[in-house]
């Protein structure tokens, strides 16, 4: 008698589980057909960093102080600057990142004294060569104009 009861209870549990699945079949599809449909990134999504363009000057405000370079845990950033004349402010003319080492912690963005760094919304960053991960941010800013 106990065995028959076990079979009945066990069999019903399988049917109850199957009913859950059957109900799910008629619900809308939740997946996005990715390469055919683009995914919208969230506003705070962290891609690799990029230089922000300020409307008042029309360019970035990087003074090549090197804070981002020193804070970076994996030495991703290389930045160099020069002065246009003796008493002018230093301006960055070289800004390279090696995205293949970046862990996207955001310490560079958080510690930038001129707030000229931000996260981009790039997410298709798969590449074949390690040099494809190197991004020239100054060039990128000029191109985006």
């Amino acid at each position, binding site marked *: 008698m106990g065995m028959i009861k076990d079979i009945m209870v*066990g069999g019903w549990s*399988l049917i109850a589980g199957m009913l859950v*699945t059957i109900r799910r079949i008629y619900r809308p599809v*939740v997946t996005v057909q990715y390469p055919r449909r683009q995914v919208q990134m*969230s506003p*705070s999504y962290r891609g690799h960093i990029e230089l922000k363009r300020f409307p008042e000057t029309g360019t970035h405000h990087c003074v090549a102080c090197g804070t981002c370079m020193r804070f970076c845990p994996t030495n991703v950033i290389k930045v160099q600057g020069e002065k246009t004349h003796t008493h002018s402010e230093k301006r960055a003319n070289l800004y390279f990142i090696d995205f293949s080492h970046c862990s*996207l912690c*955001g310490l560079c963005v958080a510690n930038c004294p001129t707030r000229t760094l931000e996260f981009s919304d790039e997410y298709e960053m798969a590449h074949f060569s390690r040099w494809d991960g190197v991004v020239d941010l100054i060039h990128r800013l000029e191109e985006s104009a």
Partner: protein
Amino acid sequence: MATQMLEPITEQTYYLNFGPQHPSTHGVLRLFLKLDGEYIVEADPVIGYGHRGHEKMAESHFYEQFLPNSSRMDYLSGLIYNHGYVAAVEKMAGLDVPPRAEYIRVICAELNRISSHLLWFGTFIMDLGGFTPFLYCFDDRENLLDILDRVSGSRLTYSYCRFGGVAKDVDEEFISATRQFIERLRSRWDDYHNLVTKNVIFIHRAKDVGVINRELALRFGCTGPILRGAGVAYDVRKAEPYSVYPDLDFEIPTGTKGDALDRYMVRLQEMEQSLRIIEQALDGLPGGVVKAAVPHKVRPPKGDYYFAVESARGALGFYIVSDGTSYPYRLKARVPSYGNLQVLTDVLPGTLVADTVSILGSIDIVVPEVDR
């Protein structure tokens, strides 16, 4: 022709490598099993395949630079690790955290705990042969990751907490999305229970399998759902309250026997409790800033400090020795999975190979956390 009588071999033990590439070992765990037929005679977990030297790395990075490492130890509950590390350094340096930031940390940490448990739920059932629940709970988890992505900007290795607060404030959309998620997950319990908890096959594979009783769990230093499944109501959030947990009302679910089914039930109930915590924290979310003014580089005074939090897998402690500079002299992470894994040497002998998968799944280890 002389006939030779061959002695039938009735007893023979042999060795089996379970992993490190086995799909149900969750990462790169290798179990070295000595088998007698289908039964395990000896089990030896071999660790170290995922060793990245996080603790050594901390010594050559200053305190801020170790932030991304903390969420890479246990990639499934990265935010809780982040919270633990940040809170440890705040305790060392005596930094104040605004109340709003504390609430946000707790909300996000509990969301992270649920996402970790949901992933465990899916993979545990998949190890036992049920593929469908995996898809359903990943659907829910995806919703959760979108919420965390909205606030922290990443889906898995959040480096969201900062010394003296959090990186970014939450907005109204985050709060409403979290409330919707709470409703959504509560409406899913019936499906999960019908699909898995009441399923006769699941019960047969989990009940009385891999019993880790109270003595065994305490001897090996197990924490988290394993210890609670054995009937010990130990939770760091209650035992050594930190952050805003003392203000929130929640219970510690416990099991009785300590078998795989108990651990399963404890985790499911923990998710319900986490939902309760999030709901209360959202109701009591104060206004104000989310990051206090802290020095550019943290320089804690000389001394050694310990701070523990409850991760999704158990008690996580950071022991940091400071020599007064901006670099830690030594950082040691007491990770829960290490103790939880060692118990296998005592639990596995005498069980079937097929039950190994069930026991390993119910323990829910994360190998990079063990290896660090």
